[in-house]
């Protein structure tokens, strides 16, 4: 069991070198993982979009970050920390191209790379006119093609992005692990039953959870509510949260979205829901929740600080202090 969490990284333009420096710092301080997000979308700072346009629209389809490049740059500057994509969107790379890059990173990192892949979010893919397939069929086909082109070349451990049980079952069948963003703690034991018993010991179970450290718990609660706002606008998350027992909150959020009420989406997140998904409050609160996720079976627990401030590196290192 890790005593420290991993971190979600996002290579924001203008901050890419400072993020690499932050990764070096985490490596020195013994943090175990960094997952780098793919930039098919950008999460806007809380309320910014609403203020600008008066509508709830938290994702925009411009090119902002490249998770694989970020992983490689970090791997080049670090010695121990494991880097992974969290996640790379399958639709943006032909399997043969994905493998070419993954192989490269795996070799120059000395085997410290994990390839997290997923089909992304329909809302974003539609903006780019991708021909979207059914997620399970798509991931099965993509993985088969990836393995088929890897003749004679090693594939790094393969992790599927998952939310609901169907994709987790598929990950159990075809992959080496699964990665959630915003897994519901109370629902994890139910979900993890989908992983075949013979695979469970070696299966990577990763989760990226919003994290906000503050002695003022009310302030922290507000912050993580805003973090979840972005996800509540996405259909796949609405379904997942409903499946995990938060149907009432989802319905309230959908009503707020329909009314272009950005603040209303955040307000729909109950304290129980925030508590079940996020790490927030004092350093002791955050550590306690980190351990709870691990006890529930998450063996690569990572935290996301994307929503904190404009300075990503500073936000990450501030949260890291809670675990020193």
């Amino acid at each position: 069991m890790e005593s420290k969490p991993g971190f979600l990284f996002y290579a924001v333009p203008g901050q890419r070198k400072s993020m690499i420096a932050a990764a070096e710092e985490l490596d020195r301080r013994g943090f175990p993982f960094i997952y780098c997000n793919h930039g098919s979308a950008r999460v806007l700072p809380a309320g910014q979009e609403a203020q600008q346009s008066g509508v709830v629209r938290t994702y925009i389809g411009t090119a902002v970050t490249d998770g694989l490049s970020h992983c490689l740059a970090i791997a080049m500057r670090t010695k121990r920390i494991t880097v992974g994509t969290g996640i790379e969107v399958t639709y943006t790379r032909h399997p043969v191209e994905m493998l070419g890059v993954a192989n490269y990173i795996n070799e120059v990192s000395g085997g410290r790379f994990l390839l997290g892949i997923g089909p992304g979010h329909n809302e974003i893919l539609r903006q780019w006119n991708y021909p979207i397939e059914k997620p399970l069929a798509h991931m099965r086909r993509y993985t088969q093609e990836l393995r088929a082109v890897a003749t004679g070349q090693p594939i790094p451990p393969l992790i599927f992005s998952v939310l609901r049980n169907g994709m987790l079952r598929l990950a159990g069948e075809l992959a080496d692990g699964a990665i959630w963003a915003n897994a519901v703690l109370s629902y994890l034991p139910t979900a993890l039953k989908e992983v075949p018993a013979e695979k469970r010991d070696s299966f990577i179970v990763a989760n990226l959870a919003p994290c906000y450290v503050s002695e003022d718990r009310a302030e922290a609660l507000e912050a993580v509510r805003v973090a979840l706002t972005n996800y509540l606008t996405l259909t796949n998350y609405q379904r997942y949260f409903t499946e995990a027992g938060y149907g009432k909150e989802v319905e309230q959020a959908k009503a707020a979205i329909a009314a272009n009420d950005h603040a209303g989406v955040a307000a729909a997140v109950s304290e129980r829901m925030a508590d079940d998904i996020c790490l927030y409050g004092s350093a002791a609160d955050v550590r306690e929740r980190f351990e709870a996720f691990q006890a529930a079976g998450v063996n690569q627990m990572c935290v996301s600080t994307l929503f904190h401030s404009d300075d990503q590196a500073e936000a990450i290192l501030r949260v890291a202090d809670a675990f020193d």
Partner: protein
Amino acid sequence: MQKPGFVLSAPPGQRKAIIEAARELERRGFPHVLCPHEYARPHDAQAPYDCLSLCTALAQATQAIRIVSGVAVTYTRPPADMAAAASFNYEISDGRFMLGLGSGYKIVLDRFGIKTEPPIPHMRRYLEELRSAATEQPLPPILIAALRRRMAALAGELADGLIGGNWALSHVPATLASIPADQRDRLIVANVTPVYLCDDRAEGLAFMRRLCAAFSRIPTYAAYFSEAGYQEEVERAQAAFAAGTSQAADAISERMADDIGIFGSPHDIRERVEAWQAAGVNWLTLSTLYPIRDRAAAALRVAAVFD
């Protein structure tokens, strides 16, 4: 004489050695490295040696040398994804990265089930989408892979430079003449020129003949070589391949081999590099990819010619 750049490609198992080679070239004052998106066996659907990843690694491993993708294939990355990767490399290299783009080989893309468009409108559309996707981040200078004159003209119109591969030295003036004079002066003009260092010039000639014959099988190169005045050689080489004989290299004239490749002694190589630069290729890039297995050693061996 200005030192040339070098092609560096990283097949599996040599990736760390290639990074060290780039550091060494930087220490020795070479101006740039160009990283191809290389398919080891184009007739197999095998994972390529990814050029943008190599550029990322070199950006982290070096401080001064310029780094060019030569070239990233448009069909395998959507413009927004390409913009993200290019902008990333540009930022972490402190502006030393340049994005070389090309539409790749149809023979390879067909193998991957990727539908292709006519090259000129495809590249025009791709560049427009690339630039419109990069509204929030600066893009590096963009170079377009160009063999024939129409693509060279497009590079003059829409890009910051062009990258040739196996251009014929005698045809460079005609290629550059397709670009309006007012655009030409600001352009980076790169060419990947195969080089073979040897004491026995006959050995170098034989190697270059084989290489030219092999490229004659690729339709885009066959068309370019014909445009450059080597139609007879191309047709004879293609006929030899079609007949299944091993005589294709014999179809390549010494004039053609000498016009496309650089081979011979250190003195021969330096002299020829100067000739290429005098012809207007201001980013001459030497390729030592063939046929030596240890690519880092191959590049550094030729680099020693310029010390």
